């Protein structure tokens, strides 16, 4: 087997026409592609020497078939040189900075030295060398004559895209009339005019000559002309535009010496400027422009082929016309046409040039367009590629899975394979996979013999093939439980958007995930789809397992807390379980804990009429490690105290176990390791689900209703706010309103009204709040942080409040009013989008309309934001992607430039330490623990001092952890 070559570097440069010819597989002279029999025409655009695309045909250059032949370049001999559009700016610069006669750069030695130095410096510092070139050209352009041969330099005019003119001042054709007119006496201005004698005296030109000039018989020489111009203060010249043909430019550039190019930073070895003028056009291989056969058998050619056909046609016509001695005008027209086709072949989006179009009117996609943009070669095919061994389908939740797992539909599992290298130890296993065939689940799709031959496993041959499987064969077996795969949801905004999961093969068609991994993926189940990638070598599988598994991603590097944890109903569940600390009988308690590894209840907390009981907090404590001590304030507001693994007091809610920095999960992950945290999150989720099912939890429209007297109170509160607003308006209209510093009176009024109405809504909310019991499901959700807020509740039960567009009350609509329902210049609350009703009570038509206005703004905002922040993210990642922490603690880019001497000034990892924590090492606590109390065991001491790393296991399915982390501790297989 041939050793794969590794790309060491890429050298960029222009190519010499001679090299084109040498590299070319054939010269292309025929504009046609296929003959009547459907075979490619010799020396045509589909010449088999340029490579083959039809299966079965053989490449005439390399002898291989389609698929293994990459294709070969051909060439077209252009009848006349044409300009390469990509270099028009540089061509203009070179024309302006070099001598029209000797081709040398119009800079003296000192200046040359300066620019040479600047160029070297720019290269060293990584600045743009093109800036130096521009500066040098600007300098050289100032020279009126060539410092080497003394030739006066003409100005160059560039008519976009590819025409250049030399502009020179020459004597205008009607010079005699001009002179005569200037010599005429001007009655109005009271000027006497000039007689020929006077002119002769003034200009020091003989009278005879003057007369001759005035008669138009003699063209004045330069000096004479200047003198006359001065004497009569007129301009006798006109601009003469001499068109520079590409061939002229090519000749000009050939004279530029290498050392002059060096000053401009042009590498003469790699790119001579005359090569920017094309004399030979390379014809890309057939494989880069494959033709497609349509359903009706007709061939449809690629855009590039179309363009090449045009070029060859014009090229032919050009040659024929020139040989026939056609007039210059026709030749020039054809030349321009040839230029146009070559230009659009290279770039079809040049401003000022009509794009070449397909017959259907669609602009052709030529070379530049193939490279550019998001779907172009660079971003679309090189930086990002489509891959094999991937699957995509809808996701749905499955709380019975571990967070490390993903449910894979069986039809995906039988399609995607893993390579099994057959060894002494797994021959039997491998044969069994093959024996099962491609359709029954743990089967195989292909086998590969040691000679490299791949055989498809079919239902028919599987039995037979299974017997043949020997050592060193490879079997492409189906995905089975415990395989590691990569799972991803777009947009992949952070690294937790791509994580590794272990496969659990399942029936039906969706990917199944545990709901606790929704936050990192930002997934929900309203139709979201996700992608899965099967890994194809051991290196990748090992890295995925060790670095990318979900449990390794529990902590987010953004804020150094956990991003995986309980969400929504889990939090409502733990809240119900621990808030009022309810009692459970033995059956109930066992039922709650049945999905966890706990199979024995602790001592009962007490006894009541029904027998022994266990409290919710005790049951929750069963999931905690025995030596956990914690104290923090919950989002419900009470103090949570955990002593020696027992929840002594407090409510377990979002701040304790939630995703985004739940204290318990965070501490567990940092102190007891990822595996322990994974076990805890899995168990808390199932305990919470059991708990919420035990209590029953639902929400309906009646849960937001408040008694009539409360409704009345709300109305009163809003009414009084209306009165206050009215007062404000009256003071304003009386001109008595005092403006806030730096604000106008009208602005002040708006602010005050907004404030008043904001308060009105809040008090409506407070009134409503008083009438909700603590067991109201909406209240439970808002308090525990599971979902929703008190504001949502206020809007549902109290009053929706002020609608705003651009942070102001609604002021748009008709002239001086928002809707025709109101009087012009009505400043009242209801006329500017205050919604006094609640969602439950229902909105009036006007309110509904204003609400929709506010809602629309939100939608627009989201749409704009996603595109803007997407671009920001792309730029940030592009700028920072090369930075890496080194063994010495510095942060450097891949070329070795130091960006930081220590990451974040102290080398602390953002994953393990959050921003506010300082160095993250709590010396005081460590000292207290060491001095304060004896360790119970040497083991505990070792663990506390970090001498012993917390146990971890690499799989939930293989090795000692097979029984899903059964047993009390977590078993380790490392």
């Amino acid at each position: 087997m041939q050793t794969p070559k590794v790309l060491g570097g890429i050298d960029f440069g222009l190519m010499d026409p001679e090299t084109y010819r040498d590299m070319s597989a054939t010269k292309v002279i025929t504009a046609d592609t296929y003959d009547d029999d459907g075979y490619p025409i010799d020396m045509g655009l589909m010449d088999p020497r340029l490579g083959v695309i039809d299966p079965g045909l053989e490449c005439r250059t390399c002898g291989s078939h389609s698929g293994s032949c990459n294709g070969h370049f051909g060439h077209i001999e252009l009848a006349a040189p044409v300009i390469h559009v990509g270099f028009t700016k540089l061509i203009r610069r070179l024309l302006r900075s070099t001598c029209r006669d000797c081709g040398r750069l119009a800079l003296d030695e000192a200046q040359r030295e300066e620019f040479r130095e600047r160029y070297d410096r720019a290269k060293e510092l990584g600045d743009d060398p093109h800036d130096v070139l521009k500066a040098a050209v600007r300098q050289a352009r100032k020279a009126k004559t060539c410092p080497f041969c003394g030739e006066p330099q003409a100005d160059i005019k560039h008519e976009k895209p590819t025409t250049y003119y030399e502009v020179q001042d020459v004597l205008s054709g009607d010079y005699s009339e001009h002179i005569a007119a200037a010599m005429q006496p001007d009655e109005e201005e009271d000027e006497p005019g000039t007689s020929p004698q006077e002119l002769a005296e003034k200009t020091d030109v003989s009278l005879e000559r003057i007369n001759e000039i005035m008669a138009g018989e003699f063209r004045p020489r330069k000096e004479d002309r200047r003198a006359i111009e001065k004497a009569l203060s007129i301009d006798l010249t006109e601009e003469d535009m001499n068109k520079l043909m590409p061939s002229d430019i090519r000749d000009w550039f050939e004279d530029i010496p290498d050392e002059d190019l060096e000053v401009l930073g042009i590498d003469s070895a790699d790119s001579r400027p005359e090569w920017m003028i094309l004399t030979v056009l390379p014809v890309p291989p057939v494989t880069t422009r494959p033709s497609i056969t349509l359903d009706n058998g007709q061939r449809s050619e690629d855009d590039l082929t179309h363009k090449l056909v045009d070029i060859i046609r014009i090229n032919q016509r050009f040659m024929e016309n020139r040989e026939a001695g056609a007039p210059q005008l026709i030749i020039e027209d054809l030349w321009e046409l040839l230029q146009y086709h070559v230009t659009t072949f290279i770039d079809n989006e040049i401003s000022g040039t009509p794009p070449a179009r397909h017959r259907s009117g669609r602009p052709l996609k030529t070379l530049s367009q193939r490279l550019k943009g998001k779907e172009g070669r660079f971003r679309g095919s090189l930086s990002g590629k489509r891959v094999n061994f991937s699957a995509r389908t809808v996701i749905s939740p499955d709380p019975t899975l571990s967070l490390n797992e993903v449910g894979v539909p069986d039809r995906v599992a039988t399609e995607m394979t893993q390579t099994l290298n057959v060894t002494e130890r797994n021959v039997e296993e491998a044969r069994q996979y093959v024996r099962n065939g491609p359709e029954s689940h743990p089967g195989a799709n292909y086998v590969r013999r040691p000679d490299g031959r791949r055989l498809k496993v079919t239902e028919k041959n599987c039995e037979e093939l299974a017997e043949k499987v020997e050592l060193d064969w490879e079997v492409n077996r189906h995905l089975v439980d415990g395989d590691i795969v990569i799972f991803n949801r777009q947009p992949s905004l952070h690294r937790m958007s791509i994580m590794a999961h272990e496969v659990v093969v399942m029936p039906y068609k969706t990917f199944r995930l545990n709901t606790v991994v929704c936050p990192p993926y930002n997934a929900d189940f309203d139709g979201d789809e996700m992608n899965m990638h099967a890994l194809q070598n051991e290196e990748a599988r090992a890295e995925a397992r060790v670095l990318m598994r979900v449990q390794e991603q529990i902590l987010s590097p953004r804020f150094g807390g956990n991003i995986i944890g309980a969400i929504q109903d889990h939090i409502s569940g733990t809240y119900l379980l621990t808030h009022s600390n309810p009692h459970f009988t033995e059956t109930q308690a066992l039922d709650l804990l049945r999905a966890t590894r706990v199979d024995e209840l602790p001592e009962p907390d007490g006894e009541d009429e029904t027998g022994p009981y266990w409290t919710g907090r005790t049951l929750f404590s069963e999931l905690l490690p025995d030596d956990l001590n914690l104290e923090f304030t919950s989002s419900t507001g009470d103090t949570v105290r955990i002593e020696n693994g027992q929840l002594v007091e407090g409510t377990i809610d979002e701040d304790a176990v939630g995703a985004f920095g739940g204290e318990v999960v965070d501490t567990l992950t940092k102190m007891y390791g990822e595996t322990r945290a994974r076990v805890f999150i899995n168990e808390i989720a199932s305990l919470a689900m059991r708990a919420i099912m035990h209590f029953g939890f639902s929400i309906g429209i009646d849960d937001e209703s408040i008694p009539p007297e409360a409704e009345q109170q709300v109305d009163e509160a809003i009414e009084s706010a209306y009165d206050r607003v009215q007062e404000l308006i009256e003071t304003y209209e009386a001109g008595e309103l005092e403006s806030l510093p730096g604000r106008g009176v009208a602005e002040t009024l708006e602010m005050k009204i907004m404030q008043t109405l904001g308060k009105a809504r809040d008090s409506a909310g407070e009134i409503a709040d008083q009438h909700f019991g603590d067991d109201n499901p909406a209240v439970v959700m808002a308090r525990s942080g599971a979902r929703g807020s008190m504001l949502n509740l206020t809007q549902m039960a109290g009053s929706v409040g002020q609608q705003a567009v651009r942070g102001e009350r609604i002021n748009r609509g008709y002239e001086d009013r928002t809707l025709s329902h109101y009087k012009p210049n009505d400043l009242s609350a209801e006329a500017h989008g205050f919604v006094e009703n609640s969602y439950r009570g229902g909105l009036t038509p006007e309110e509904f309309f204003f609400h929709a206005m506010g809602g629309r703004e939100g939608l627009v905002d989201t749409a704009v934001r996603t595109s803007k922040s997407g671009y920001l993210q792309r730029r940030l990642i592009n700028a920072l992607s090369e930075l890496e922490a080194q063994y010495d603690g510095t942060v450097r880019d891949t070329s070795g430039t130091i960006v930081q001497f220590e990451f974040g000034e102290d080398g602390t990892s953002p994953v393990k330490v959050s921003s506010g924590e300082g160095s993250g090492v709590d010396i005081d606590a460590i000292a207290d623990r060491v001095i304060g109390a004896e360790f119970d065991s040497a083991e505990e001491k070792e663990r506390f001092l970090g001498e012993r790393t917390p146990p971890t296991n690499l799989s939930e399915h293989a090795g000692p952890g097979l029984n899903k982390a059964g047993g009390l501790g977590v078993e380790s297989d490392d």
Partner: protein
Amino acid sequence: MTEHEHVTDDMEAVVEATELPSRLKAQVYETIDAKADEYGDVTIEQVTDIATGVENRYIETRVDPLDPVGTVSAQSIGEPGTQMTMNTFHYAGVAEIDVTQGLPRLIELVDARKTPDTPMMTVHLDGEYATDREKAHEVVWSIESTRILALGDVSTNVADMLVRIDLNDDTLLERWPTHSNPSEVAAIIAETIEDALGVDARQSGTVIEFGPNEPSYRELLQLVEQLREIVFKGIEEVERVVIRKEEIDDEEQFVLYTEGSAFGDALDIEGVDASRTTCNNIHEIYRNLGVEAARETIIDETKNTLEEQGLDDVNVRHLMLVADIMTNNGEIDSIGRHGISGSKDSVLARAAFEVTVNHLLDAAIHGEYDELDGVIENVIAGKPIALGTGDVDLRMGSRVISDGGQPTDDGDAPANERAD
């Protein structure tokens, strides 16, 4: 370490033997000292335990070698971008001044725009200027640009071709606190007008009159227009100054917030505490205080922007990295095609970002060579990237290790071991 009375030489030896950086060692000594006071005595064993505990915890919290910190930081800033509001204006700490907030402000910072959308300065004051309202106002008047309309009434007399300014006595004395006579101030104003407009101004008391040199109605109106633009006092760029009393270091101090910024000019004003005064234009900071200050400002500004949006949990270390790469050259580079991404060494990396074709053509002219050592280039070339596990050059031989623990073959497996 003599400063810690309870730390013996033995203890010091133990602590010094750890890999801790000096700042943590110092903290360990302090803690030991404090604990010795608290518990009465600390044994050498306990110190050893503490040192090991601290060292292990320290090593655990260090960023891993070969960690792709750049990408992680970029994601950590970019990801919350989706949660930010687009609403341009919002009121910052000071309700009176509008400041660009949210995503637009973040984009503006990362773009390193020459002037922010809403330039502003926070001016802290020195000594008694900070505590005395009168004194503070003196600074206000020398910062806020004073134009004619703030000083008095302007009227035009078409018949006599005259512009007449009636200055307000009180305003004059208020804004020029060093003068006690309004007409003195009026004289200064008249002089400024003469210099700026090139006219002769007659001043009597607090009335100034002037007209075009040659009678022309157009000229007269133009003069009025130009008159409005003249800045008589303060910094031209600063439109407005808001003065606020704030609690700083247990002391009530006046702090000035300005709309518009001219950092260099503001620092020169007497009464301004240059060490605490800041500005939200990173380029002004760079010009006046240098690149390190600019870096600090980028960190502060991005941090404030995120905090204002309730994203206060984003780790500052990410913001530091962004600020560091922006200032790595010694000047401020933007993030994007005109800055860092556009000045990368690799042609392919530049071409893959933006303006693909131009980069390729320029590379050809300058005969550039792409070493393919960056990330994007290697993705394109299909090679492992030199970050994380891709940056490890360790290879294992494929031969069986014999009894002696020595590989039968030497450890240097051929480089293409992995390939076959």
